[in-house]
């Protein structure tokens, strides 16, 4: 497969239509913006009127380029929820065109003018992509009324929650660490606040969210299963505005405005929870001395130098703080910073250069009589990324390079015992990850489009220090010393990507995709819930890179003039070099943590059904997934394959939003899924006269099915062009179903030779209210 692929790739490129110039062609290019606030519009359609097969979409920076034979054209620029715009162009030379679209009024009495071609899901080559606009999120009821991107994507088919109220997620049977989570291109290593009950993404600061579940385009890499690409707002370059919300346990405020009108703008968005203020109300000194909160801050500024150059600077800073009196404290969080430069070489050639920094770290302080401890751990990346897009007639070439320097600090402990300070550090590790890619999106015929791509990734683990090699049973086989910066081990590989789209007509398409993905860094966690202290590790002498191959075929259909979109997708994915843990593995602060790991393979397959109603008084979606996810390790379950924890036979999500009147809207979500695969005892024996469970198979049992209904009401108290005041009332788990979070087994506390099963459920019915404002 690998060896024959570059040749086929080359052949495709040679035969592609760009090579044969029949008629003189010119290019119309430009930028699409939102007229109200100057935000660049991603994914707007730019189509030739009356010739719907000719067209393109704006890129991540609102830029588009369309090359056509010379002539007169009417170009229609449109985007869902905006009034479309027609512009006449005489293509006797290269032209630029800029468009500022006006939001279609959301008032239900008026006829909403829509873009003529809202069928991007049909005509694009991308497969298995879910796109969410943050506007869509605001009406969906969520826990504590805090609208949340990660909670909302868990309502999409193929995406499974890692647990009640948990921001972690599994995509098509992949692990939590196999999702590439990007915030303005910076990697977010831990996307959860408050031990997973909230995500780190403040939706007020977010413009668009793209979830890629399959057919990953060549410009993405580094994770096996999915990409969650989150883009922050650029900031209003027309007016100053402030938006925010006051909620029961958190509040947020966003301020944005022009620095220089039409040229530059900024946005600053902050959020803080105050759950711990309630703790202070407690009279119990054991509770009121505790702290428990998080805050985060998003900031972004952009500057348009001229038509050809534009700069963006964006950043995120978030911290969680938890403390129990003075005895124990932990804080953790992410920092990201992205500097980007958009450059238009000419009207067909667009480039973006990014310099990215991100880090994730935690600190633990323990102070008890006689001993004080401070533990610190971090992962830090420096990233340079260059992406180019070259637009030809009916063809787009994308290519680029990416170089990341990873810095792993697995743990440093400072201990003060009897006034003596003693430091212990686990070996720091460094990794250099590089990738180059090329992809070509073109039309093979009028109906058949292709996007073929190839990515080559290479990762080097760098010294210095003592590096160990372990046996299959975890004992030390060999060790060697490497100087600082010396290469300990290098892995590399090709990652071919292919997407085909056969457009049957304007409303029907069949798509196929194949993607090979490789991953060089992993998250170690052997508990049921994600923890801020879970450890990221790179490939090494012992840990090999993971590789996945995913095949995906889907049928897409739009109904009733694109009011409904529907799809059926079947996927099959294999994963190799998956990681599991020896029994009783010590993952925290263990110099020999790699000796605790075992390696195996996995596979996952399923079918996803999705129907979405995009407009009208009632809108929303229904998603259903039927799937299976298995893992196989020689050391586990007697070597037989077993269902992965995230194996989920049935998964149903229903999201409905209904406009009752101009002032009121009602929303509801319902989820039902098969319970997690779990390990229960199949026998009992006594040790020290206490009952102990006897385990015979991994994940051979199921938790009871999970189901839950959430409802919400939004009341718009006031809305003018500039000001807005809305109330959100939401009820989580409206019929108060006690879903099992865990079922554990233990000796009967009153008679330890006897046993009992204990079910823990987390959230019953939780009402909340939030006031949102804008001025």
């Amino acid at each position, binding site marked *: 497969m690998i060896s024959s692929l570059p040749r086929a790739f080359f052949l495709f490129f040679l035969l592609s239509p760009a090579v044969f110039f029949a008629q003189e062609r010119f290019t119309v290019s430009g930028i699409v913006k939102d007229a109200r606030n100057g935000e660049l519009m991603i994914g707007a359609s730019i189509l030739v009127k009356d010739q719907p097969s000719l067209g393109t979409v704006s890129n991540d920076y609102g830029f588009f380029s369309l090359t056509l034979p010379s002539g007169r054209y009417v170009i229609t620029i449109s985007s869902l929820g905006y009034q479309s715009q027609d512009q006449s162009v005489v293509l006797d030379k290269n032209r630029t065109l800029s468009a500022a679209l006006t939001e279609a009024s959301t008032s239900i009495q008026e006829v909403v003018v829509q873009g003529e071609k809202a069928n991007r899901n049909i005509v694009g080559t991308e497969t298995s992509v879910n796109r969410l606009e943050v506007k869509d999120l605001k009406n969906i009821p969520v826990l504590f009324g805090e609208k949340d991107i990660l909670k909302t994507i868990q309502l999409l088919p193929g995406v499974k929650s890692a647990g009640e109220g948990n921001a972690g997620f599994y995509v098509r049977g992949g692990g939590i660490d196999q999702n590439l989570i990007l915030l303005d291109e910076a990697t977010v290593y831990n996307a959860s606040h*408050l*031990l997973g009950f909230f995500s780190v993404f403040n939706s007020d600061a977010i413009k668009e969210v793209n979830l890629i579940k399959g057919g990953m385009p060549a410009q993405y890499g580094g994770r096996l299963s999915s990409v969650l690409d989150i883009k922050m707002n650029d900031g209003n370059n027309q007016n100053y505005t402030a938006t925010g919300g006051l909620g029961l346990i958190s509040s947020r405020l966003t301020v944005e405005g022009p620095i220089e009108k039409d040229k530059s703008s900024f946005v600053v968005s902050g959020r803080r929870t105050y*759950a711990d203020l309630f703790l202070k109300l407690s009279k*119990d000194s*054991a*509770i009121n001395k*505790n702290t428990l909160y998080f805050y985060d801050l998003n900031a972004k500024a952009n500057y348009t130098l001229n038509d050809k150059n534009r700069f963006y600077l964006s950043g995120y800073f978030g911290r969680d703080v*938890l403390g*129990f009196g*003075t*005895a*124990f404290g932990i804080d953790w969080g992410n920092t990201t910073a992205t500097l980007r430069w958009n450059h238009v070489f000419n009207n067909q050639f667009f480039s973006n250069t990014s310099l990215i920094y991100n880090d994730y770290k935690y600190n*633990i302080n*323990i102070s*008890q*009589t*006689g001993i004080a401890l401070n533990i610190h751990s971090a992962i830090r990346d420096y990233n340079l990324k260059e992406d180019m897009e070259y637009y030809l007639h009916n063809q787009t070439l994308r290519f680029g390079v990416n170089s990341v320097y990873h810095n792993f600090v697995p743990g440093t402990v400072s201990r003060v*015992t*009897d006034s003596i300070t003693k430091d*212990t550090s686990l070996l720091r590790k460094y990794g250099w990850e590089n990738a180059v890619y090329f992809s070509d999106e073109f039309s093979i015929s009028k109906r058949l489009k292709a996007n073929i791509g190839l990515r080559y990734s290479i990762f080097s683990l760098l010294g210095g220090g003592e590096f160990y090699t372990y046996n299959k049973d975890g004992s030390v086989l060999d060790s060697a010393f490497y100087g600082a910066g010396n290469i300990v081990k290098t892995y590399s590989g090709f990652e071919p990507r292919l997407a085909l789209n056969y457009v049957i007509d304007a409303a029907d398409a069949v798509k196929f995709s194949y993607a090979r993905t490789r991953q060089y860094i992993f998250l170690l966690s*052997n*508990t*049921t*819930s994600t923890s801020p*202290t879970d450890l990221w590790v790179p490939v090494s002498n012992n840990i090999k890179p993971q590789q996945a191959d995913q095949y995906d075929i889907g049928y897409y259909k739009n109904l009733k003039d694109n009011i409904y979109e529907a799809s059926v997708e079947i996927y099959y994915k294999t994963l190799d070099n998956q990681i599991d843990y020896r*029994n*009783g593995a010590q993952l925290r602060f*263990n110099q020999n943590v790699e000796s605790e790991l075992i390696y195996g393979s996995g596979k996952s397959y399923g079918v996803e059904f999705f129907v979405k109603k995009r407009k009208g008084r009632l809108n929303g979606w229904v998603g259903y997934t039927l799937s299976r996810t298995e893992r196989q390790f020689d050391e586990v379950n007697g070597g037989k394959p077993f269902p992965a*924890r995230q194996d989920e036979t049935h998964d149903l999500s229903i999201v409905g939003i209904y406009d009752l009147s101009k002032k009121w809207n009602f929303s509801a979500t319902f989820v039902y899924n098969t319970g997690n695969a779990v*390990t*229960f*005892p*199949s*026998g*009992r*024996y*006594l*040790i020290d006269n*206490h009952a*102990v*469970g*006897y385990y*015979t198979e991994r*994940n051979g049992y199921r938790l009871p099915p999970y189901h839950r209904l959430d409802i919400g009401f939004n009341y718009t108290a006031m809305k003018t062009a500039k000001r807005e005041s809305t109330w959100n009332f939401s009820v989580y788990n409206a019929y108060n179903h*006690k879903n099992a*979070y*865990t079922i554990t*087994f*233990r*000796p009967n506390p009153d008679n*330890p030779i*006897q*046993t009992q099963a*204990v*079910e*823990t*459920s*987390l*959230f*019953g019915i939780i009402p909340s209210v939030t006031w949102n404002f804008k001025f």
Partner: protein
Amino acid sequence: MRYKFLLSALLAFFASCQKVIQVDLNSAAPTLVVEAAVTDQSIRPVVKLTQTTDYFNPSLPPAVTGAIVTISDDAGNKEIMTEEKPGFYYANKINGVGGRTYFLSVQTGGKEYTAHSFLNPPIPLDSLTYQKDDSPQSAGGKKRYVVLAHFHDPVGKGNGYRFQTQITQAASSTDTSNAKPDLSYRLFTDRLQDGENINYQIRRTLELNDQMQVVMYSFDQNVYDYYFTLSQITGGQQAASAAPSNPNTNIKGGALGYFGALSFQIKTITIR
């Protein structure tokens, strides 16, 4: 460990709810369970042989009788143990001596199971002290106390410790949980503090005039691994391992349980 404590505090904060439920479980084929100990005190080495039962079986597990159980050491002593009551096998000649390795063989049902364990030279439990408890679990207005065990870990990694406690409550004491037997595995390893003076805090809170007896066991790495992996599947470890499995036993041949060579010391303290 600390994280689990954190998580449980957080779960409590979010008003989680627990209840005892009925679960249908499979019936595994009965498997041999070996619970064997040799100590450095004047207690005869004992081997207890039982079988697994269905998980919710309320009665005592069946004893395995008629097995041939042999104990030996690296000083050349060897003895076939005597079954004095059903499933309990005792040695009458061999007794534990610190610094020796002990070997166990069990023959039953046509199979042989073997194990060995190193008996640590005695590690003294130097003293017990107590201090006022300032941890957040110590709720209520009453003064609470925790006990610290002080000992010196000998140089050389691989020493494991277990602390077993028993509380004799004062007449004025109100904490009912202290009246129950201690089901927790209070374990310590010298993995990060090899060769140091250790002040091990025992996480039980005492009231004024309560008395606590502490048994400190020390043992080799294999026994520590057994206790540690056992502690992960017993005693209400709520956020414990995502995939519970049988403890890492030092017995070869497919039996459950362990063979521990245990050195131990006992001390008692009263809160005044």
